[in-house]
Every structure is written in structure tokens, then in C-alpha cells.
């Protein structure tokens, strides 16, 4: 993987929140090492307080790391210029409630110095895309939470960004809205954009993420391709068609002898929810750092730290 294809890279990224007197209050992120590659949908999973949002804020330069560093497009996060290529949807729709949808998008468009005519056309397209045409002139204070998420998402992609950071994009959305957002995220990926999203709605993440990182109490607990992570390695599953009933009990030994039509021999997959709960349980039972191997490239450990 060339350096150009690494969109986000964190090295020993650590964040400690301190109180007024500077005493450590909570260690929100502990020595996070990860890479996000061009064109993938990367999910940051974890229970509340696991450090997902902190990670995104550190990536955007809204917080400064206590230790380590984060690079986006191989530039430090404090570089304002990199934001021209980034779209960001915050955890809550922190938008100006006194503006209407059109004004909101126009304002953010101006921050990217998009020309007026181009801005107008993008605003129309985005409002149409997020299904807020009927409410485009209403102030956001009158919007439901779902509508606010939609306009929030629209503002995040007003600049046609290369990298989109979505902090819990489906929170507050109904099932239809969630499905639409998921489709939209996949569409963005198909356009070649890199997407980082955080959340704890596991089914949603399982559907769309290419790779995920699971965080718990600020530590990276698992990292890899979703499919790889969900594969149960110690179980072999055999699917057989037209096998005689008599052979079922001795299936392993007789398949070849009976020349049955072996359709598949593989490992069953669990659900992301099961995986997630297992990791959280294990973390609680055995606290401390653990070695995390990127399951995409098993031979190369992606993140490691002393136990």
C-alpha cells in the first residue's frame, strides 16, 4: 500500500482529559495506531465512552493529542488547509438552528469558497438527495432529529470531499432513513470517497463497513476486514446436498466414500453484535492492552503494545 493511499494514519495517538488543575481526569484514548485506506468504509465501533468521538475530534484538530500524532492526507491535523478535502458530520447535528436548510448549505459552501452558481446547484442536488425539498425554507429549529441528521449529512458533503467523517450518522433516524443513509454511504464509497464512521448500531456497521476497529475504554481491541473478523475460525461448516439420511451420522468419514455432492466446506460466521459483545466481555474480564493484528494482512501486526 503506497503512502498516497493511506488517508488517515494515527501513531501512538493518546488523549488524556484533565480537570481545571491539570490533573488527569480520564484517559479517553490510549496509544491508538491505525491506518485508513483510500476508498474504504472504515467503522469505529465501541460502547459509549470508548473513544470513538475523541478519535474523530483528534483527527479534525478539534482536540490536541496528549501524545502521539495523527495525519490526514499525510498532513498534521492542525493544518487547516487539509479540511478542504474533508467532510464531517458531528455526533449530534450541531448546526445553527436559526438558519434554514438552504441558508445552512449556502453558508458552509461559502466556507469552501464554492462559486455562487456551483453552490446553488449543489444545494439543490443535496437537498433533493436527503429528501428535504419540502422543508428547505424552514429554520432548523423546526426540524425533527432525523431531518437534522439529513441536513447535517448534506453539509458534510457540500464540498464533494475525498474523506467523509461521520460520527454516528444513523442515530435518530427511522429504519427507512437509516437504509437511505446506508445507501448513500455506499454510493459515496462507489464514487471513490473514503468514509470513516463511528457508531454502535452494529447491524448497520456490519452491512456497510469494509473494515472496522473496535475500541473499548480508549483502547483498540480489534481491527480488520469485517468478513475476516466475523469468521469463526475454530468451527468448520459443511453444506451438503442430496446426502442420504443414513450417512448424516458419519458425515465426515463417509462424504468421500459415498461421493456426495459437497457444496461447501467453510467456517460459519457470527454476527457483529456477537463479536462486539464478546470483545467487550473479554475486555472487562481481562483488562489491559492486548496485541491487535490487522486481519486484512494477518502476517503484519498493525497495532501492538506491551501487555
Amino acid at each position: 500500500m503506497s503512502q498516497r493511499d493511506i488517508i488517515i494514519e494515527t501513531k501512538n495517538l493518546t488523549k488524556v482529559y484533565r480537570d481545571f488543575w491539570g490533573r488527569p481526569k480520564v484517559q479517553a484514548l490510549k496509544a491508538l495506531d491505525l491506518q485508513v485506506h483510500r476508498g474504504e468504509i472504515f467503522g469505529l465501533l465501541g460502547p459509549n465512552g470508548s473513544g470513538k468521538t475523541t478519535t474523530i475530534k483528534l483527527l479534525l484538530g478539534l482536540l490536541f493529542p496528549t501524545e502521539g500524532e495523527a495525519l490526514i492526507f499525510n498532513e498534521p491535523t492542525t493544518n487547516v488547509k487539509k479540511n478542504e478535502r474533508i467532510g464531517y458530520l458531528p455526533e449530534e447535528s450541531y448546526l445553527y438552528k436559526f438558519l434554514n436548510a438552504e441558508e445552512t448549505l449556502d453558508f458552509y459552501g461559502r466556507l469552501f469558497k464554492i462559486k455562487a452558481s456551483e453552490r446553488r446547484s449543489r444545494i439543490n442536488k443535496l437537498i433533493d438527495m436527503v429528501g428535504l425539498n419540502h422543508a428547505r425554507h424552514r429554520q432548523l429549529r423546526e426540524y425533527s432529529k432525523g431531518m437534522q441528521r439529513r441536513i447535517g449529512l448534506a453539509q458534510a458533503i457540500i464540498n464533494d470531499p475525498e474523506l467523509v467523517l461521520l460520527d454516528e450518522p444513523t442515530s435518530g433516524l427511522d429504519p427507512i432513513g437509516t437504509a437511505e443513509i446506508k445507501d448513500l454511504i455506499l454510493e459515496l464509497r462507489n464514487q471513490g470517497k473514503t468514509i470513516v464512521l463511528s457508531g454502535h448500531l452494529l447491524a448497520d456497521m456490519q452491512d456497510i463497513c469494509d473494515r472496522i476497529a473496535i475500541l473499548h475504554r480508549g483502547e483498540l481491541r480489534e481491527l480488520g476486514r469485517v468478513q475476516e473478523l466475523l469468521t469463526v475460525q475454530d468451527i468448520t461448516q459443511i453444506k451438503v446436498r442430496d446426502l442420504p439420511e443414513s450417512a448424516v451420522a458419519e458425515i465426515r468419514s463417509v462424504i468421500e466414500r459415498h461421493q456426495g455432492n459437497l457444496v461447501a466446506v467453510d467456517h460459519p460466521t457470527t454476527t457483529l453484535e456477537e463479536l462486539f459483545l464478546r470483545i467487550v466481555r473479554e475486555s472487562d474480564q481481562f483488562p489491559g492492552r492486548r496485541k491487535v493484528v490487522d486481519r486484512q494482512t494477518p502476517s503484519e501486526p498493525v497495532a501492538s503494545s506491551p501487555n
Partner: protein
Amino acid sequence: MLDTFLLLAQADAPQQAQQAQQIGLDMPAWLLNFIGWVYLFGDPAYTTKGIFGSLLTWLKIIGLFSLVAWIGARILGAIKDRINLPALSGIAAAGLLGGIVSVLFQVLQSTGRIALPSVAGVSAGAVLGLVSMLAVLVWLEATLWVSMSRRKAQGDKFLFVVMHFALALGLFFGFLVYSYAVVPEGIKLTFMDAISQGVRIGLTFMGYTSLLMLAFRLVMEFSGVNPIRTLAIGWLARKEAMRRMWAPYVVLAVFLVVLAFTHWFLQPPRPAEMSRLFVGTLTLLCSLLITLMIIFLSPLSLPTDIQQQTIYTIVSKPVSRLELIWGRIVGYMGLVTVIVALFGGISYIYLIRQVNSTIRATVSEADSVRADNPLRAAQLDDQAEQLTARMSARVPVKGSLVFRDSRGVPQIKGIDVGQELEYRTHVEGATPSKGIWRFGVVSHPFDEVRNMAARDAGRTPTPPAYPIQDRRVPVDNFLRPGTIEYVDNQLFLLKGRQAQGTTGLESRIEALNTEKRTLSAKDAELQLALKNAQASGDSAAVDKAEAALAEVHSDPFRVEMSFTIYRTTKGRIGEPVFAAIKVINPVTGEQYENTFPVREYYTDYQLVPPSVLVGSDGFLNIEVQCVSSTQYLGMAESDLFILASNGSFFWNFVRGLVGVWLQALVLTSIGVFAGTFLSWPVALLTTIAFFIGGQVAYGYLQELAFQAQFGGGPFESLYRLISHDNQMSDLTPTVAVVTAKTFDSLVMPVMSRLVYVVPNFASLDVSNTVADGFAVTGSQVIGNVLMALAYALPFSIAGFFVLKNREVAA
């Protein structure tokens, strides 16, 4: 001692070696010269005359401020980074302890309680202090270096190293002086003097380096500021003010409600004061409402944005922190501009309608009673005239006032009649007492009074001790080209130059003589025609002749006066107090004299023939005496002036509103700055405190800055509070008192300079000048604009640095 170097450095090079030898310096001239320049550039308290000197002082001050800010920011960073160097902590603690012990020793020594031995001619207490300071410095420097390394701040590390070179250079020069310098009396400079001087120069050099770095960073930051983004942020701030805070609507509603009932409660004490009262009140109302609006808008915006986390969606866009601050200022100032224009427009229409209708009513009433009651008609005419005068923009030429008392003795002030709060002093009627206004390039009144006394006694006047003032009358403004007086003036000036030896002026003099002859012939002809017309009673011919004569002559110039009268007796009821005025051209001796009744509370004026100005070169003396016996005429310098021109009231009113706008600009910058690091209630209080400090308490703060208050600084005052000593009583020099005074002497210089952080809001307010009917000059407006920018820019830049180093999501 070191001043000698500078004096020598400024002397001619060939003389320097000789002079150096004369005062006992054994160094080559070039070195002496070089050290002189280093001293000029390096010593924070030394400067030279003129613009260069002012600029240099300004650079030194700004440099030292940026040095303090840079070090302060690095210390804060180190504290945040929790840098702990166990190996050096002990040294630092010992240094701090040693410092306290050193202060104690020195206080005890200065109060005579102990006698400390000397080490190489330096008090042991001072040596201990020096060593302690060095120990703390070592610890501090190591801590800062580790912090900068951890932050990978290569630029800061580089600057840190350069600063040390600058300090070393300063110390080198300090020791260079120490090695060479011997004062005439043969007293060598001490080692401590050399260190002290070296540190002073070194700190200034360090200030220059940090200023350079700051300037570089700012230039980089400024170059990244985009007007589209800045205006977008401004647009947002404006929308927020209008839709969330409803501020402009509230302010406009209050303004209209107050305006609707203005005529109920605004009753001028005299009819002629109407315009003054209305202009002053409306501008005050406008200023007050805008100030309130800004106080509640500007400090709340950023903290609310941070608190509600809406700032996340802004700072995650390519918006620099400077755009975030300037955008807000631009937004609010856009709003202020609209409101000022709206308020100004409404106020102006209201004023014009009210005052003009009053003037018309007064004139018509005067006309109606003129036949039956001429006295009343004259009073009404005066009122109308005063109202008209106030609705203009008079440009005054002010003289410098000195007095002669009842015995004719020159005085800086007139007679004090016991009215303490009255800034006017008086001249006594029917005595030689008079007020003398001098126009031209005039000496300070203190010098003039001394010289008048010298001249009276037949002695030679002494050179001026105070700065000379330029109060020349702009003669060219009054003498219209193509008139007899203009030609006369030109001739006089040219002949003067010719008498001084300038050649080649003959042709111009001849041409002017020809023009003068033509004009004189025309004047004589018109005078005759006027005489004939008057004799024949042909009013049309009289008007025509007068109009033609006015073409040949310049207009008389107007001297305006507003005196008060202090009556020791009632005098004759109905009879006014009289004053005599004498306008003297000191060059030609041409005079104008008149006696006139003084109109109390009104502006008197005299129309002086333009011939008095001929050849004056801007020099005039105007003497005013009180004619009426036993009465006193009260006057102050600004009570008499020559009216240079009469501008448009509208544009003057606009300039008055510019003052309100500038006040809002400074306040907005302070509010936005406060919002970058404080929560909204604290930011709001801070902004209010700045406003009150700059508007109401500026005089008090000035006194504090100049240390002109009784009772000492904060520590001495605290001691006096505890010990129940009043402000005036002398304190016994006990250890506590000496310690308090020592701390005061450390704290007060810093505090007195910090006072200037508070802007003088009152000086930006020119509404009184407008209300009095005087022009707000262009230079005054420019001066105020520069002053407002001098506050608004640093506050916004300070806000930028705070925001840049702040975690908005923390």
C-alpha cells in the same frame, strides 16, 4: 553615565576621540560611536527625538510585550504538558528560597538593621539574589526546552536559541562598556552595573527577535485569510444577532420609543440651547444603545458557539481562527453600520425638523414683534442666530491665552473670583486687566508670561523652556485672490523676502503693483458710486455698488467669543456689561478696535476687516478687556477663536456618528477577544468592565498609571488599610512598610503600563464637538480611526492566538 556614550555617538566623528579623552574614555572613536548606537537601539528607556525616536520606542515596547507573551505562552504550555524535571526541581526550589532570603536581607540592610559584607564590591544580598535568579532561570529554561521538544516546535526552539544569542550580545555590550568606561570623576562602573545594563540591552534584543517571529507568523496567517470566508462568518454573526438575539429589533424599538417622547423630557434651559441639547442627547442615545447591543452580542457569540458545539462544523472546515474572529467583528460592525446609519438618519431628520421649525417660528415671532417690542425682537433674533450657528460645523483657529491683571502684571491666569468649579478666570472691569490671545508661532503661556514681565522690565527675554506651538491664522483662507487685501498681502510678503536678500522677485512685484493700482482705481470708483447712490437714495444702486465693492475686497473675518460675567454689583438694570476688543497685527501694527455689549450664554462675534491680516503671516494678537466698572469678564482659552470656515452640519453629524462606530469597533474586538477564552457570563462582565474603565474611569486609571495617587501602590495601601493609617500620613519605615514599598516598586511599573490596555472610549466620542457646532476635523477623524485600530487589531490578534491554542472540543 551611559548617556554620555549616546551624546558622544551623536557628535561629529572627528571630535569624538578628543571628547572621549576629555572625559577619560580610552577607546577608539568608531567603537564609541558603535556602542552609542547599540545603546540607542538596546536600552529600553533610551530614545532620540523625532519620528525615528518614537518609532524606536514603539518597537522596543511592542518587542518586549511580544517577548513576555511568548515566554508566558511557553510557560503555560509547559504547565499543560506537566513537564517535571526532578533533577532540577531542587535547584529551582533553592533558587526561590534564596530569592526570598535575598529580598529580606536587602530590606533589612536598607533599613539599617543588619550590615551585610560585600563580595567584590557587591552586596552579599545582591549576589545571593543573582545566584538564586540564575538557578530559577536554569530550571525554567530546561523545562521550556523539554516542553518545546515534546511538542516538536522546531520554530520555537530556533527562536529560543536565537534569543540566547541576543541576550549574550546584550551582556557582551554591557561588559564592553564596563571594561572601557570611566566617568570623569574616576569612578568605575560596578560589575552589577555591567550585568544590569547588559540584561537591559539583551532583553530589548530578545524582544526584537520575538517580534520578528511574531510578525512572520502574522504575515503567514494574514496571507491565509480569505475575504469570502470572513464575510460568510460575518453573515452568520449578523443572522445570529438578528434571529437568535433579536438585538437590532430591540435596539431599534427602544430608540423609536425614546425618540417619540423626546420632546416631553428634553426641555432646553434656553431656547438657543435646543440644537445642542438635541444633538447631544440623540448621539448619546445612539451610542448608548449600540454599546449595549455590542456588549450583549460580541462576548456571547463565541462562547455560545463553543458551548453548543456548533463551532465543530466551522473549525472542521478550512476556516482559520483569524477568519473566525475577524468574521465576527465584520459581521457585528456591518450590523452596527446599518443601525448607526438608520439611527443617524432618523435623528438627523428629527433634528432638522425640530430645530428648523423652531428657527422659523423664532424668526417669524421676531418679525411680528419688531415694531412694538424691538428689545424682544432683538432677543429672538439672537436666539435664531444661535440656533443656526449650532447647526453648522465651525472650524475655529484657537490662540494661546495669557492675562494681565488689574495692575497690568502678566499672569498665566486671570482673577479667581472664587468659583472653584469654573475653569474660566476673570478680568476686572475698567482696569488694565485683559485677556490676550496670541496667534502665530507662539511660545507656551508659561514662557510668554515670563517674557512679558522681562520686556516690561526692559530685560531681554529668555529662550523658551516649553515647546513652541503653531497657532497661525491661515491667512490665505481669508484673503480671496483678486482682492485688494490679497494683493497687498502678497506684496508685503514678497517685499519681505526681497529685503532678506532674495532676488528675482522684481517682475512679480511689478505685476502685483499693477494689479493693485487697477484694483485701487476700481475701488475708488465704486466708493464714489456708492456715495452717490446713497445720496440719491437709490437703494438698487446702493446694493449694486456694495456688491461690486465686495468683489474687490476680501470678506471680513469673524472672531467669535462666549464670555461669562461675574457681577459684584447689579449695575444698572437692563444695561449690559461691555467689553472692548482690540485685534492687532503685530507685524504691520494695523489694528481693529470695538466695544460691544457682552451677551451672556450666547456667542458674540466681531467682524474684523481683512486689512488687519495683511502682512501678518498668520500672527495676530487679540486683547479683550472688561469696560464696565466693578464687573468681571470670565474667559478661557477656547472662549475666543477666529472662525476659519463654516462646514456642513450634515457631514459633521456623520463624523460624530463615525465616533460612535469606532467605539463600537473597539468594544466588539474586546468582546470577541474575551469570548475566545472565557465563558459567556465572565466574557460579558469583562467587556462591561473594559467599557466602564475606558468610558468612565479612564481619568482614574491615568492617575494610577502616572502613580499620582496618594497612599502608595496596592501593597502600601493594603498596609494602610490594616494599620488604619490614612492616605496622607507618613509611615514609619518598619520591615513591613519597606517590604510593602518594595513590592509596590516591583508591581506598579507593570500595573501602570497595563492600564494602557484599557482604551480611552471617551476620546473617540466627538458628539459634544458636533453638538457645540464645531467641526470634527479630518485629522481628528483619522487620529481616532488609528487609535481604534490600534486597539481593535491587537485584541483580535490576541484572540486569534488564544483560539489557535485552545481545544474547541475540550
